[in-house]
């Protein structure tokens, strides 16, 4: 299990920030030649919006990301819950 998956499982997911970005913030300037690493969840939100043909206004993104973080943390509570491969999903379709 990845470190992020473990933290998600504990419901303590925090977006990762590269040390470079932290250092650059602390000094108030960017480290030469190395742009700050973007939080992967920010990239995911942008990519998912693109895939869904949703035009996200910049002001919405922070709240969307926060909601997605909460939802992913909750998903992590059951994502690894052991179930057999032939476990049937709850809704059953009848032809």
């Amino acid at each position, binding site marked *: 299990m990845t470190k992020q998956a473990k933290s998600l499982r504990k419901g303590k997911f925090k977006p990762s920030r590269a040390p470079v970005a932290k250092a650059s913030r602390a000094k108030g300037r960017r480290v030469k030649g190395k742009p700050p690493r973007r939080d992967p969840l920010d990239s995911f939100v942008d990519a*998912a919006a693109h895939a*869904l043909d949703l035009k996200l206004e910049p002001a919405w993104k922070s709240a969307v990301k926060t*909601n*997605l973080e909460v*939802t992913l943390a909750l998903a992590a*509570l059951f994502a690894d*819950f052991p179930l057999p491969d032939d476990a049937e999903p709850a809704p059953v379709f009848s032809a």
Partner: protein
Amino acid sequence: MDTAWAHASEIAAAVCDGRTSAAAVVRAALARIANHDRVLNAFTAVTAERALAKAAAIDAERARGRRLGALAGVPFAVKNLFDIAGLPTLAGSKINRDRAPATRDATVIARLEAHGAVLVGALNMGEYAYDFTGENVHYGASRNPHDVSRMTGGSSGGSGGAVAGGLVPIALGSDTNGSIRVPASLCGIFGLKPTYGRLSRAHTFPFVASLDHVGPLVRSTRDLALAYDAMQGHDDDDPVCARRPVEAVAPLLERGSAGLRIAIADGYFRAGASAQAQAALARVAAALGVTNEIELPEAKRARAAAYVITASEGGALHLGRLRARGRDFDPAVRDRLIAGAMIPAAHVVKAQKFRRWYREQVLALFAHVDAVLAPATPCTAPAIGQQTFMLDGVELPVRANLGIYTQPISFIGLPVVVAPVPFQPLPIGVQIIAAPWREDVALRIAHALERAGTVAATRPSLERAE
């Protein structure tokens, strides 16, 4: 008779035997709405003309010597996600104002009216039912009649306020994760979320197809049974509605709770509960002589899975509107729906698989008990506008967490009655949870508690509120 606080059963009896007329009852209800809804903000539409015509028709039936229905002349109102012929079905939104007016009533409205009830209007709700607060950025917050600075709970907020405020004796709500049970608890009234598939949802605006239920909110267990019985029966227009015969519960109420095996939900359902929620549960358990405790396995995961399914299905439902009219949503709802649309499908499929597993574990418990008691909400009504509260030492958003005790139950479609414990200054409800299709068990227990005086809908002082 004081129809402001009369039960539906009392109103119907008075109309049937001529002590009052349906027209007089309906006029009084319309006057109360005109007087008090400026404060309570429960109604988004009042169908006065239709109501007076229906009342006149009922009185004419009686004059002709016809037998009247069990709800003759009883005013009722519905959350504005139920179709009402001639009105656009708002579902709490600004966007739906542009919908064409509904061409017919929701099935359950037609069924209540077939028993003589009289529709007087449509009720405020959280936008698209994605809400536990009763707040609405477009139409204003529904206000709790016990303290109008406080939330009704949601999303059936207007339903809770209208019944608790004495505007109507019966309101209909919908419950996907707790939207009948949360307002019933915070407003101090009775609510029934029936078994998934028991009551038709046809001609209502959906939220989460695999979790949506409809049901009544009222001020007595007798009324709960009468309204529920009137709405039962298969409906071809709702593919989920079960092919079961009407199983009337009103005749069974007096059987009481004797002989029923009842337990208190332990573990997840005790963590985070406020002192009032714990005290309400203890009072109900003591009145029933219940000391046995039982744990619903993996309830925390069940709540999480319900949350994920809700976000995903809700996001999918509204994706087109989010693309076209994102700015017209309540921002708090929009941002949750967008996030929901982005959830990886693997999580949703796993949630649905886990749901079946959880259902099997919980159903096995019903071999040993007939009903389970649990808090309905973690606390009494928060203040309108309150964003967060403390649960078990952790600060959490109110909007998403008022339903932490209701979500693991509706997740597997179990029938639940919320019974109000009349604490002062604010009431709080207890869930009485039964096995699928055993609404009668939950209602019998609630009725026994009501007769013992343990639970009751108490009358707020609306004059004080104004």
